[in-house]
């Protein structure tokens, strides 16, 4: 990251071609790849863009605000000889910006002499600290079986009409540094929230703003809003601007930053649109072949580094088109992020909140943040046992739907009861309920105690002796 000031550069009057949000500009010499341009239409209004490709005397420019109203002869393009930079400062917390990082809350431009490249730079793997501190979200399906750690990227895979916004807001409101079960609460450390909205409705942005206000966190939140009626191309920059601020706060101001990105599906569509206009060879469903690398350039801007006490934790939200988890957006996201929390339509219909579909959900880093001296010794095996039992419940349900519940064996009937209780008591909790890790573990053991001891092969015998309260506990 280097400091720069934006200065005037060469200017070209008139463009050769306009295709969607893309301008083809001829007659510019020595244009840099990825340089920022300023575009003036015939009425003198300014908008910004970025160079996507350069040839001899030709530049392909993407206009963030779209090309509506631009004309072939009346457009002036000024090349600013630098890549896109935004100012970064601690004062940006509590403020609201547009998708390119300009303030839209009526306040002044943030005062800063630090400008940072929105593209960031890759973190050197040797400079990272492996995440180990768990975040207690107070939500059993996360803390118990899909634990979130500081420095992790854990997306919410959802679908239209499901309460992903509520869940994200609840996580943001309740997140505290986790502690060993039974230990007293510790003082909070400096935290910040960076919220980036891409193509979501105004209601959604408003919902989050209200939620931040209610929890008293608003002064610690920076919001970058590109709403549904804002130019789609701007969406390419929005998460980058947000993450650039997050990196500054985490790595130079030692804060623990939680980044919420919503909705990544809209981001992917903006990327696809640009790619199609440029006539690139598509891979799956029309998305460009570099979708994976592009998404990685966002998601990988998460983590902890050795030179700073701060951290960046990402919670991207994705609505899966048609609830299809194999769609390129959730698919490629899942390959990059460290797990996923999947919301299930059926649970949602059944009135369960949060409707976390436990089986397809996963936290890859969980194993390193739980267990002895972190949560509780039995936690890892307890989690595996709950998973295994609930997976078995699904098989039993399938069987019951064919042969009827009465025909099931005694053990299988117990599994059915366990499954129902698991959804009602473990998964289900209220929007305001903040469960401690002890409570979550306790509920889990209570549910496991509904099953015969012999079925519990994932937990060890000592743990059964200590926590198992079922009928055959004595023998």
């Amino acid at each position, binding site marked *: 990251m280097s400091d720069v000031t934006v200065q005037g550069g060469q200017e070209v009057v008139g463009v050769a071609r306009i295709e969607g949000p893309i301008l083809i500009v001829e007659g510019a*010499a020595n*244009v840099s*790849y*990825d340089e920022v341009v300023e575009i003036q239409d015939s009425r003198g209004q300014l908008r910004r863009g970025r160079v996507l*490709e*350069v*040839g*001899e005397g030709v530049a392909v420019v993407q206009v963030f605000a779209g090309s509506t109203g631009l004309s072939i002869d009346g457009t002036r393009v000024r090349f600013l000889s630098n*890549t896109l930079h935004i100012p970064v400062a601690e004062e940006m917390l509590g403020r609201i910006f547009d998708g390119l990082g300009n303030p839209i809350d009526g306040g002044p431009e943030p005062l800063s002499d630090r400008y940072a*490249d929105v*593209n*960031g*730079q*890759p*973190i*050197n*793997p*040797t*400079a990272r*600290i*492996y995440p180990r501190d768990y975040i207690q979200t107070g939500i059993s399906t996360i803390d118990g079986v899909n634990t979130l750690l500081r420095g992790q990227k854990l997306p919410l895979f959802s679908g239209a009409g499901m309460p992903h916004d509520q869940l994200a807001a609840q996580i943001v409101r309740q997140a505290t540094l986790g502690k060993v079960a039974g230990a007293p609460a510790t003082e909070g450390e400096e935290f910040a929230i960076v919220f980036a909205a891409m193509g979501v409705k105004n209601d959604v942005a408003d919902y989050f703003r209200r939620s931040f206000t209610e929890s008293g966190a608003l002064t610690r939140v920076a919001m970058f809003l590109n709403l549904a009626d804002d130019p789609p191309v701007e969406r390419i920059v929005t998460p980058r601007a947000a993450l650039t601020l997050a990196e500054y706060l985490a790595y130079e101001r030692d804060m623990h930053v939680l980044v919420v990105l919503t909705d990544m599906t809209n981001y992917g569509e903006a990327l696809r649109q640009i790619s199609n206009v440029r006539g690139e*060879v598509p*891979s*799956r469903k029309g998305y460009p*072949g*570099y979708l*994976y*690398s592009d998404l*990685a350039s966002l998601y*990988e801007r998460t983590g902890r*580094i050795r030179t700073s006490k701060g951290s960046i934790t990402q919670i991207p939200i994705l609505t899966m088109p048609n609830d299809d*988890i*194999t*769609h*390129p957006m959730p*698919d*490629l996201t*899942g*390959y*990059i992020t*460290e797990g*996923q929390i999947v919301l299930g339509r059926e649970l949602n219909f059944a009135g369960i909140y949060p409707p976390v579909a436990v*089986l*397809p959900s*996963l936290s890859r*880093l969980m*194993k390193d943040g739980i267990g002895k001296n972190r949560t509780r010794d039995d936690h890892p095996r307890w989690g*595996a046992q709950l*998973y*295994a039992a609930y*997976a078995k419940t699904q098989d039993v349900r399938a*069987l019951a739907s*064919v*042969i009827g519940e009465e*025909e*099931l064996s005694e053990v299988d009937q117990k599994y059915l009861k366990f499954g129902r209780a698991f959804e009602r008591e473990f998964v289900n909790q209220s929007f305001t309920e903040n469960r401690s890790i002890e409570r979550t573990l306790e509920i889990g053991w209570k549910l496991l105690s509904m099953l015969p001891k*012999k079925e519990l*092969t994932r937990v*060890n*015998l000592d743990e059964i002796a200590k926590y198992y309260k079922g009928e055959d506990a004595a023998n």
Partner: protein
Amino acid sequence: MSDQVGTITWISGPVVRARGSRNVGMLELVEVGSEHLVGEVIGLKGDQMTIQVYEETSGMQTGSPVYGTGLPLSVELAPGLIQSIYDGVQRPLPLIEQAMGSFISRGARFDPINREKKWKYTPKVKVGDEVQGGAILGVAMETDTFEHRVMLNPDDSGTITWVAPAGDYTVVDPIVKLKTSKGEKTVEMLQRWPVRRARPFVDRRGANIPLITGQRILDTFFPVAKGGAAGIPGPFGSGKTVTQHSIAKWADAEVIVYIGCGERGNEMTEVLQEFPHLIDPRSGRPLMERTVLIANTSNMPVAAREASIYTGITIAEYYRDMGYHVALMADSTSRWAEALREVSGRLEEMPAEEGYPAYLAGRLAEFYERAGYVNNLNGSQGSVSIVGAVSPPGGDFSEPVTQHTKRFIRCFWALDKSLASARHFPAINWLDSYSEYVTDVADWWREKVGKDWLDMRNRAMELLSEESRLSQIVKLVGPDALPYTERMVLETTRLIREGILQQNATEDVDAYSSVEKQIRLLELVLYFHDRGMAIVRKGAPINLIHDLPVVDTIIRAKSTVTNEEMHKFDDIQKQIDQQMGQLDAEYRS
């Protein structure tokens, strides 16, 4: 050394075109722009050259110079590779961190191999010896226990005229002087080798020794041979990386090359922080002391990702040439294929399937064919085994990378999402996976453990496929409709699944199973099956067998019996005898 050979005319991401000299070679290494970014010439047409650049090109201008080096993209090979961590074009990441801080910025240029460090070197040749390419000139101690055999470059040969005495030398100090057909030549420990050219050997040996990984489902059920190639395809979250890490930790290879190709930064950090603390069960030394890491994470430049695979395999071949067994993990080859696709797309090449270039299959074949158990030029024998992870979009195995990979590997470990969801790990589906090495390595097992592994393994596989058939019926009519003999099969396969196939990589006792433990577990389960079957045939109800306390004991044996406590298995066998014996007596009449 580097002259300007061209001027940039076009830039699109990692692909740059330049006009200039007609004397630039295909695949020549060039330096691009005023910042001298590293690139490689991948196309030539008249005075136009197409270059893929291994660093971020943001801010690069048309009209900037391109400098030639006259050399192909090469790696440096010498003592000091082990314990290193490099990016895709062999730049040492720790030095980049020292110089540039936590983030990787452009234009970093460091020697991959430390030039100052001195190694304890002992010559193994004397003046007057005739040496051929690949000959071992001497040995240097690369770690306290690892002997680095310094070899003559495979392209050189001649008569030795001078030998450095035993002592401490840097990698660029002369160690031998040679009279060759082209005159006198001074040889150093350091040599360079172009990454896209396989290092030569005499011939291939049969691959009939298994690569033991300590993972029961791999060693017992789907073994890969030393010098073989295996693929691990699986959707996200199915445990590709955990499996790769387990193999990197426990495989009985002398050198591990781990390529993190387009994957997560935190995963590489995990390896970096964990391996120095884990002890190799064979050598008693930290695992890091046999490991070379190549980390080109998903957010690092995409062209260097393409190169990372070649950098890794060339280093692996170099250690093979010394006579070592090397295992190479590539996680993930799909990201490498995507890098090919991205560069191909920018070149506007005609795409074949799903936008991948038509040469995808050819490139995959070239890579996997560099695996092998070979007779080296210097008479020693060594192997490179490749384990490549594949990340099929949507978990769909019919996509091009998985399909082409299947053509060039002989061992296929298919990961399964539904097993992963049930937290059955490793989530390798035993019905979709296969290994063509099974019969090749049977002799080794017979000699090593003295038992008929092949027969037991095949019996277990038969039971598992029988289970699959029976569970179809169970799904329709429930388990009560099956006769006891068939339900006995289900009892046994549950023991196989939970007691053998499932393995917990994070639990100390279970993470690594010796071959003796593996075969003993299998033997016990089959013994249980035979005894149980005899009893149900006499009419004993199946639930009596299901309720035997020994069932639980067998399932837990994997994590209660350590590799050193083999005698405990005899106790378990006695328990089977005793408990089954009782039942047997009751139903004798």
